């Protein structure tokens, strides 16, 4: 089995490398198809490998090269299994999506080459067994993603957004390097397994420093508040499958990093690590969804929603660390399973949503919710698939989002088992914030589905959209995966339990899945629910309204007049709710957070009806840019300006520097 | 309960007992005109038809055609008709048949005047 897993990993890597090379021929249709085919094969291999790795519980070790700076060692650890499976699934779906989304061109060729190499480097990052391999893979992945975002570099705003992405990625990278450097020097090894084995002997202060640096460093990539500002900038400008890849997978790599440090490299940390992580996560979740509600651009909205979901995942991780630190290892393992499960779930449905957002953008020419409407008639298949993704992400039964959020709440509600009352209260607060997020998410996604798909088209572009030649199979695959992950949750959770067993060292299978396909949160008497039976029940119960309808149909022929509209002359699309107005209650309630600037302009002050159009402009104040980033940037610029005289350009001054250094070196080495 | 209390409650109910009983004040409500056909002349009828603001009165040959549907009970024909026009006291004029609201009153006054 281990050999099979290894073979699959190598196959995936090879397929993606081949896909990158084949992409060079993507200026023609055949090259595009070949590249996508290979990419899809790699995806299938990776997905299968990930699943097998999770089920089997241990993976092989591979080596590339020896000696120099530690060489490149790869080890398929179970913790990476869900991420590898997700990588494979996302890659497969995007491979199905690409042929109809991209047109064969030189830009496409470069883009697909870069994308497949990014897949390869993500895989390398997930299976890296030593520090150098990890860091190289990480940086490569970041740079490749930067290039992916620059696909349409000639459009306005793209270069700035991409720069924001890479700048923040680099800052995070520096912190990650520092974290690894601390661990490597303190344990004297560059091999991750050895570091994990020796970490307990490192001084507690160094361990905490390493963990915090890693947490903050990976937070930049994961998109936790306040390091999230690159997400809403980069996602709209990247092509749809690029955004899907970013949101579906790349930000999960940040989560992987945190999990790696928290559970593999530095296990058994103090509770405050978990609390800080949980705080990060909960705040990101709430702020993410609150900012999402103010967005009119569909992709920016989805980007903020990704921030919200990563917040939820990180909250689960933090809670797992907290519970484990207080001796509740079963709940700790349960919450780790929840985090991994939600990672896979979110990867699936967010990728789906971004791919469909790409279809909407291509068919209607706009991402603005206030210019869309009535798409359920024009794009029926897209509407159905988007609906499945919406129901899943809004955590509605019986799909996967519901199961993972239920499990998260069940885990958090068991905070009373912790001996410290303060920590128990903090966990409850985190639970309350996540609950608020859940409610706001339903509001947000009802708006995100209702405004573009239902009602009347708000613009000519939306009225004439056509679904022909649009990709369907990729998103449909992901929709099927959502349904499977939800209804087949007992299966998926069994696999994740093996992962948790290998990572956290505790097997909670008996306290996780009960024989009747039920899921229980680590303690039998606490609660139980079966997603499979729930889905079957919902299907069965939907027969009731259908029967009532069939039985209640009138026997006599009936007249069907138009809908009663109060006798008005005609419905106009302008009479409908817009995305802006639909979120108004939230805007008013949370005004101290948004600090909006509102600008109202009338053509004249004539009495009502004759004053001409009224222009209303509403802008949310970007408090993080304004109060965190700008001051920091100003400080850096000030310091740089202070240091400028050193580099005056005067050759004599430079010679003086050389002289001083030589004198100092002489003095130091002479003594 | 004391009889006076009961009687007071009864008198105190302000709701009309219609359709069981019509209130006494209803007699003073504005109502459609009624005519003494013996005192009607063609000339009078023409004058009344001219002045009716609702167009309810018209003369057809030797008959005064009164469209009760159009009458607004303004009372001008009452004032101008001398004794020939009296309020009829009828204000409950609902009908399913529009034609039933058009009444004809023969003009008999002329014949009497005509004959010397």
């Amino acid at each position, binding site marked *: 089995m281990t050999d099979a897993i290894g073979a699959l990993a190598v196959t995936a890597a090879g397929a993606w490398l081949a896909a990158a090379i084949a992409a060079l021929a993507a200026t023609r249709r055949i090259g595009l198809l070949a590249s996508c085919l290979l990419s899809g094969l790699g995806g299938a291999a990776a997905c299968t490998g990930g699943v097998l790795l999770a089920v089997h519980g241990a993976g092989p070790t591979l080596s590339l090269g020896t000696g120099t700076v530690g060489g490149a060692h790869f080890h398929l650890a179970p913790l990476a299994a869900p991420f590898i499976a997700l990588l494979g699934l996302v890659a497969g779906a995007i491979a199905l999506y690409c042929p109809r989304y991209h047109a064969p061109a030189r830009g496409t060729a470069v883009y697909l080459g870069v994308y497949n190499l990014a897949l390869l480097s993500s895989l390398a990052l997930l299976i890296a067994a030593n520090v150098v391999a990890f860091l190289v893979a990480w940086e490569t992945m970041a740079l490749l993603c930067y290039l992916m975002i620059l696909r349409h570099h000639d459009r306005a705003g793209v270069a700035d957004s991409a720069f924001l992405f890479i700048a923040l990625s680099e800052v995070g990278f520096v912190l990650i390097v520092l974290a690894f450097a601390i661990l490597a020097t303190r344990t004297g090894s560059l091999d991750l397994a050895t570091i994990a084995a020796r970490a307990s002997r490192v001084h507690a202060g160094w361990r905490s420093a390493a963990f915090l640096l890693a947490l903050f460093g990976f937070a930049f990539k994961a998109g936790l508040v306040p390091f999230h500002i690159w997400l809403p900038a980069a996602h709209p400008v990247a092509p749809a499958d690029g955004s899907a890849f970013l949101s579906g997978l790349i930000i999960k790599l940040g989560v992987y990093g945190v999990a790696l440090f928290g559970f593999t490299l530095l296990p058994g940390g103090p509770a405050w690590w978990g609390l800080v992580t949980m705080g990060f996560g909960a705040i990101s979740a709430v702020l993410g969804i609150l900012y999402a509600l103010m967005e009119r651009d569909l992709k920016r909205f989805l980007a903020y929603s990704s921030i919200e979901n990563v917040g939820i995942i990180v909250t689960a991780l933090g809670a797992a660390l907290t519970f484990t630190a207080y001796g509740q290892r079963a709940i700790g393992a349960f919450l780790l399973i929840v985090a991994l499960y939600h990672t896979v779930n979110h990867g699936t449905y967010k990728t789906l949503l971004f791919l469909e957002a790409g279809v909407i953008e291509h068919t209607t020419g706009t991402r603005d919710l206030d210019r869309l409407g009535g798409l359920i008639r024009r794009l029926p298949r897209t509407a159905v698939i988007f609906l499945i993704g919406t129901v899943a992400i809004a955590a509605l039964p019986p799909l996967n989002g519901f199961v993972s959020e239920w499990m998260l709440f069940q885990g958090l509600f068991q905070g009373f088992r912790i001996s410290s009352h303060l920590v128990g209260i903090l966990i409850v607060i985190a639970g309350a914030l996540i609950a608020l997020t859940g409610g706001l998410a339903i509001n947000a996604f009802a708006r995100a589905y209702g405004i573009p798909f239902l009602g009347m088209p708000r613009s000519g572009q939306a009225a004439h959209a056509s679904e022909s030649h649009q990709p369907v199979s990729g998103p449909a695959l992901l929709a099927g995966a959502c349904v499977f992950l939800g209804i087949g949750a007992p299966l998926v959770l069994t696999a994740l339990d093996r992962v948790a067993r290998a990572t956290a060292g505790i097997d909670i299978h008996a306290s996780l899945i009960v024989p009747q396909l039920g899921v229980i949160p680590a303690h039998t008497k606490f609660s139980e629910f079966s997603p499979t039976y729930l889905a079957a029940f919902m299907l069965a119960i939907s027969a009731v309204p259908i029967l009532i309808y069939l039985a209640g149909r009138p026997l006599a022929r009936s007249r069907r007049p*138009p809908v009663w509209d109060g006798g008005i002359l005609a419905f106009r699309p302008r009479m409908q709710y817009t995305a802006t107005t639909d979120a108004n209650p939230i805007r008013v309630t949370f005004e101290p957070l948004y600090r909006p600037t509102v600008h109202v302009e009338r053509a004249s002050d004539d009495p009502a009806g004759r004053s001409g159009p009224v222009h209303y402009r509403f802008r949310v104040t970007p408090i993080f840019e304004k109060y965190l980033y700008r001051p920091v940037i100003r400080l850096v610029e000030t310091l740089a300006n202070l240091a400028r005289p050193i580099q005056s350009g005067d050759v004599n001054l430079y010679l003086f520097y050389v002289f001083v250094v030589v004198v100092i070196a002489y003095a130091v080495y002479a003594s | 309960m004391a009889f006076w209390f009961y009687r007071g409650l009864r008198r105190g109910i302000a709701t009309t007992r219609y359709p069981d009983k019509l209130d006494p004040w209803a007699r003073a409500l504005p109502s459609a005109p009624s005519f003494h056909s013996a005192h009607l002349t063609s000339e009078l009828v023409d004058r009344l038809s001219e002045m009716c*603001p*609702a167009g309810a009165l018209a003369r057809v040959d030797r008959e005064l055609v009164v469209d009760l549907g*159009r009458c607004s009970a303004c009372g001008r024909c009452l004032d101008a008709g001398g004794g020939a026009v009296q309020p*009829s006291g009828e204000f409950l004029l*609902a*009908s399913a048949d529009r034609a039933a609201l058009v009444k004809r009153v023969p003009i008999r006054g002329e014949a009497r005047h005509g004959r010397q």
Partner: protein
Amino acid sequence: MVANELQPRGDLGELSVELRRRALRLFGRSLHIRTVDTGSCAVCESEIRLLAAPHYDLHRLGFFFTPAPRHADLLMVTGPAVRAADNLLLKAYQATPDPKAVIAVGACALGGVYPEDALIHGAIDRVVPVDVFVPGCPPSPLALLQGLLVTVGRLEDRVTALSLDLDAEGAG
């Protein structure tokens, strides 16, 4: 638009009238009324509004007002059928489910006061078929109650037997 074009009466003629009468009799003690104003001076509306007041209280007779034509059994139409209100009146008429009745209320609705011209039809029955006519300007709430009771067949109409000739044989 002329009334004939939208009659659900079809070729049944008298039979349809009888059918509607029977249906209306079924409404006897529970009739829901929706008022439609096609451009009246609103005095008829004042009298209609008084129907719900304690003095006249149409609820004790089993009549109720409803704002939704979908829930209505009866349309109480006032005004001289201004052409601009055609859309409104016809939509309300189509939205009211069968069996239904239409009462035209007031002298304007019956063709008085305002003759037909470019802006108005002049009478409601030029737009929708009318079942009961209630004259008056405005009709007293008592007259309105009589109109409603005549519609559901709880009262006979008085005007058929009425004679305006005070000097007729047999009168006086």
